[in-house]
């Protein structure tokens, strides 16, 4: 098997001294996997996801992303990792409200130092791919929830990251839009070969994944194939 893309060793995280959110969590994910993280509210799955995305840091333990130890990353290096290695898709979309769809998709590329002549065609291309051809100059408030999430997916793909982290990407969407979004995400994994880690609490969403990791009270209580996990 190839080198792991994500390797987490016994990390702890707590926001208050009394209530630990994550306790001694370890997990390894290889390139090309499609992993669903499930668990009840407060089980620590979202916190775990944020640590994977270098949006937050663990209190103790080790996290290797693409073989690189992230324990003592400088802020700049963490920003660079987020830019190069990870694409985020959030439940709340997190688009810049006052900017066009094209600007939003371009954001990671501008951060990454691409010039306009480089990012503009690529941003248009990505919006075409998620089915938003011709909506380049629309602002988020002119788009439906499903369309906004497509912009967010296009943005997550901008720097061609090997890893997409999706935190309840369909949480704010109706079932039709949800199905569309999941079709796109699944395609990224099956056709594009991108590793996907998906947080959800809906079984039918998790069913798109191949591997299931269940959280409860800050610990992993199941890690295995998605069918058995959902059946259990």
């Amino acid at each position, binding site marked *: 098997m190839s080198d792991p893309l994500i390797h987490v060793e016994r990390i702890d995280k707590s926001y208050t001294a009394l209530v630990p959110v994550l306790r001694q969590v370890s997990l390894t994910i290889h390139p090309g996997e499609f992993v669903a993280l499930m668990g009840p509210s407060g089980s620590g799955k979202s916190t775990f996801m944020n640590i994977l995305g270098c949006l937050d840091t663990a209190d103790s333990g080790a996290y290797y992303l693409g073989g690189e130890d992230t324990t003592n990353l400088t802020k700049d290096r963490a920003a660079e990792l987020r830019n190069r290695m990870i694409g985020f898709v959030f439940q709340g979309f997190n688009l810049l409200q006052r900017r066009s769809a094209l600007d939003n998709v371009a954001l990671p590329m*501008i951060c990454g130092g691409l010039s306009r002549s480089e990012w503009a065609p690529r941003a248009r291309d990505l919006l075409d791919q998620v089915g938003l051809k011709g909506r380049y100059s629309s602002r988020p408030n002119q788009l439906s929830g499903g369309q906004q999430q497509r912009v967010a997916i296009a943005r997550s793909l901008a720097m061609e990251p090997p890893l997409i982290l999706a935190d309840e990407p369909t949480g704010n969407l109706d079932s039709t839009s949800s199905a569309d979004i999941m079709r796109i995400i699944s395609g990224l994994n099956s056709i594009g070969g991108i590793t996907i880690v998906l947080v959800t609490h809906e079984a039918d969403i998790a069913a798109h994944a191949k591997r299931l990791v269940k959280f409860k009270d800050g610990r992993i209580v199941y890690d295995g194939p998605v069918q058995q996990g959902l059946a259990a």
Partner: protein
Amino acid sequence: MTMKSGAILGEALISMRSTGMRSFLTMLGIIIGVGAVVLMLAIGRGVELSVQQSISSQGANLFIILSGSTTSGGLRGGFGSAPTLTIEDARDLAELTGVDAVAPINSGVAQTVNEGQNWSTQITGTTPDYFRIRNWKFSAGEPFDDVAERSAAPVAVIGDTVATNLFPDGTDPVGKTIRIRNIPFTVVGLLAKQGQSLQGQDQDDVIIVPFQTAQRRLFGSAFPGSVRTMFVQAATPEIMKTLEQQMREVLRDRHRLAEEADDDFSIRDLTAIAESVASATRAISLLLGSIAAISLLVGGIGIMNIMLVSVTERTREIGVRKAVGTRERDILLQFLIEAVILSLGGGLIGVLIGTGLSILTGRALDLPTEVSLFSVTLAFTVAAAIGVFFGFYPARQAARLQPIEALRYQ
């Protein structure tokens, strides 16, 4: 690979454009604050200058020296009743360094006649320096000169009130002959209208003749060359205290006064009047300055308000930018550029508007308004500092958060 600096500037400009109203209001706060300070201080300075001008028309840096008093039969006369000062005293005083001009004065009231008209007025006999000391302007003709003074020429400069009473039909009095105490005098100059003095005297009801003329032809004197009053003008206000002491020594020396004897003259410093007026002017300037300071404060609070209200939106924006991998430095730079452009731009417009308005106000109110470098610097610095600080500080706080905290900021 890092963000290009051009791209950061671009993001800042696009961001300002996309938050148009907010940017505009922030700028407006700075514009009003800066403009008000510049305008108010310019008006204050204008008031100060205009009062200073009217004070200096009364004569600036001025001493009046009065001759001493007599005592006869137990009755003590007032100052000026004994002719202790002389024309030679005046000449010696004029030698002192720091003395700009000395004008000895003898005056009296006399009846004046021009054809059918007659008028009783104050006749002042003095030297040509007097016009310079009092800063008097002429509306026609010119002052008599030293030659006229030395030769006791029968020439006279008349005030506006005298002119209207002796020449009611409005003829130009210059060159005409009038009679003072029945002696014919040629009018050589007409003084520009002065209005009332600070004491309410009509300053235009005067006739001024050469000192020698007054003494020899009009009033005569038991003591030729005696002087009742002298005006002494100092070069600068700063030397007045020391000059007063020096003049006292010169006069005591000339009058051969014994160590223990009292002065037989009195030196009065007229700057006290000027100072009280100047302090009133300072009060006006201070008032306008406070109004300006309050405008700046209110403008500043407006800027803070707008900036702080947008913190939630900005914090989330910063979260998004961090999530997609923007470095903290680049985020801060962008927000700093925004704050600087808004503040400096607003400050600059404020200075221009304030300057423009003070020029217009100066014209409309006929006030010598003056925009000082100090007021411009002060207003600009304070407004720019407030703008940059409140534009940048919340952004800096947000940029220090973990990205996930910024994203979740409510």
